[in-house]
């Protein structure tokens, strides 16, 4: 039986963007206040899962043509890569660096390599969650 889900679909169109924005906000909030890659990644992936729920898998795949397994791998590589980066600079493994920069719009901003690490974590979480959800739902 096909249920009529016009309301759900219409709401989703807006809500997905709110969720995605919130996910990025959480991700950027990390480091010195609550938030970070894992939580941000989970929120981001919940947006994708919502899309899967509302539309069917094929439609979503047409709209977001990524291989989420590869996204997970890219994330893991990024996270491990920041650790190895430290080794290349002759520092101890996983050493993180940060500095303050004067950026045009944001003013003085703290940028650190932890951010890259967290981005890796976020990508891994998104990749893994979406992969698992789609594996379970694929052959129903």
């Amino acid at each position, binding site marked *: 039986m096909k249920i009529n889900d016009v309301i759900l679909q219409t709401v989703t169109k807006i809500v997905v963007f709110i969720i995605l924005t919130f996910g990025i906000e959480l991700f950027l909030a990390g480091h*010195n*206040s609550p938030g970070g890659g894992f939580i941000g990644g989970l929120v981001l992936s919940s947006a994708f899962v919502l899309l899967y729920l509302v539309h069917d898998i094929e439609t979503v795949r047409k709209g977001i043509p990524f291989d989420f397994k590869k996204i997970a791998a890219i994330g893991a590589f990024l996270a491990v890569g920041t650790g190895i980066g430290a080794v290349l600079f002759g520092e101890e493994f996983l050493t993180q660096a940060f500095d303050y920069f004067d950026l045009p719009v944001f003013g003085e901003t703290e940028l650190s390599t932890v951010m890259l690490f967290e981005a890796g974590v976020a990508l891994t979480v998104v990749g*893994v*969650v979406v992969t698992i959800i789609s594996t*379970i739902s694929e052959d129903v």
Partner: protein
Amino acid sequence: METLISILVGILVTVAVYLLLSRNLIRVILGTAVLSHAAHLLLITMGGLKKGSAPLLGEGAESYTDALPQALILTAIVISFAVTALLLVLAYRTYKKTATDDLQALRGFEDE
């Protein structure tokens, strides 16, 4: 506070054991999930509760709560999340293959 949480951990473990011992595959998985949550709660209780303000920069408090248990829990949550997800996939595949989710019925299968 610690006593209350310890009792809560005890209740969670009881629930988890009950679920783990049931014959339904999904219930067993839910049992493992509840079980790991009990462990996480215990970890944070062991670090001491409400000892000071949240361990964040800019709080400006006199004393801070021990941040280590929280870091440990975050890691443990990530891991238990991954394991639970994997278990769900596995249970689903088992169900697909054997057409039953009753552990009693899964006993004594010989290799085909």
